[in-house]
């Protein structure tokens, strides 16, 4: 009797644990099937798929499923679907709103992208970031230029021009210089976009010393074939200690040890030679050993 009770108890336990596992497997299976069904809808005619996708977005489904639904929506190239997507981007909250905005960028539909302008204007910082990211994904430099032009404060302007820098929008960034004037964030954007031409121009222009120093260092970051010679010329031509220091920083950042060696060899000032030698050491230049050998030979 006791044995039978033990067996029955064990059987109950096994059955319950198996059932629990099976239920968990069933739920996973169901989720996978739902995801597959949603993804399959990408091949369906939009008029068949849209009502189903809409229902998923309006339901209590998981965020993951809803995010996938937004992607499917973004891939339907119909006016209805794009209008729905813009509505989700405008009216949703949090992660789902950001995802809807991102999906507009991925979809690349011009009307939907245009709809992001109002969402940016009325959104908080997270929404504004998401809109800029969507424009980045869609490579819509004109829209970001518009935001930079209409920016109501320095922070907004700075974020927009940084994005233009990431997008490599030379033309728009140069246009902003004539419209909004020069600022630290704009020079930084020239650096991010790799606009060597504009940075060289600013580096040689001493009318705004702050901008000039920033441009000289930024030129070192951007690099390029002639950057070493440009910075050496600047160093030699300027009597301003700040400019000289910025030029050396630029050479350091650009790794132009050949140019620093040239300055060292042409210098007759011991203090300056010491500073240049220290810079070559910091740069890990092999030329340092030649200099030491020459100095030792001279001493002998």
């Amino acid at each position, binding site marked *: 009797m006791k044995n*039978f009770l033990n067996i029955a108890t064990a059987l109950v336990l096994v*059955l319950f644990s*198996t059932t629990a596992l099976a239920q968990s497997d069933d739920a996973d299976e169901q989720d996978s*099937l*739902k995801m597959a*069904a949603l993804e399959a*809808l990408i091949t369906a005619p939009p008029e068949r798929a849209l009502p*189903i996708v809409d*229902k998923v977005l309006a339901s209590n489904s998981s965020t993951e499923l809803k995010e996938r639904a937004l992607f499917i929506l973004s891939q339907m190239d119909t006016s209805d679907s794009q209008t729905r997507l813009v509505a989700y981007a405008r009216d949703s909250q949090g992660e789902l709103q950001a995802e809807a905005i991102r999906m507009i960028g991925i979809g690349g539909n011009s009307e939907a992208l245009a709809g992001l302008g109002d969402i940016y204007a009325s959104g908080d910082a997270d929404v504004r970031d998401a809109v800029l990211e969507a424009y980045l994904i869609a490579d819509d430099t004109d829209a970001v230029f518009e935001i930079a032009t209409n920016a109501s404060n320095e922070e907004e302007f700075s974020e927009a021009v940084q994005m233009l820098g990431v997008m490599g929008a030379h033309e728009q960034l140069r246009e902003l210089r004539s419209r909004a004037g020069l600022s630290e964030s704009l020079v930084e954007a020239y650096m991010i976009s790799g606009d060597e031409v504009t940075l060289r121009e600013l580096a040689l222009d001493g009318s705004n010393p702050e901008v000039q120093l920033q441009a000289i260092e930024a030129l070192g970051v951007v690099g390029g074939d002639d950057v070493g010679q440009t910075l050496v010329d600047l160093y030699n031509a300027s009597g301003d200690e700040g400019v000289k220091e910025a030029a050396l920083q630029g050479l350091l950042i650009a790794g132009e040890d050949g140019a620093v060696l040239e300055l060292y060899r042409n210098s007759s000032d011991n203090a300056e030679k010491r500073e240049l030698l220290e810079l070559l050491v910091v740069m890990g230049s092999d030329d340092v050993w030649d200099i030491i050998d020459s100095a030792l030979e001279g001493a002998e």
Partner: protein
Amino acid sequence: MMRALKALFLGLLVLALLASPATASTFDKADGWYKWTVDSPVNMGSSCCGNLSGELAIYVRSKNGGPVRIRAYNAGCDKGPEEIVTDLGALSLAQSDALLLEIVQASKIDMDVREDALLWLVLTGSDETFEYVDRLLSSR
């Protein structure tokens, strides 16, 4: 007391049997390829040979009594395997849907195969398919 425990034991056994997943029965007759063709209401586009025919050739490979692979081609440029074990002939959309749905709903079949079946189910595009997808996505 003893009788009650025996009844409980038997009840649990019945429950355990009922809980075991269903199997796909059409494809367990023999291992190898099964083939059928179906007219799809959906334009299959020019993805294959530029042929815009709506007829689709669907192949299911069965191994150890269950589907392990699904392929489908526009029937106009059929590139399916040559050795067909079971040719199911030309099926109606409803019959084709039923076969694919049998795979989708069989929990013993590999999930990748079930998902492939679901994709072809949606691609063939019957009203019933979209109702099924709607129900599936609305379920909790």
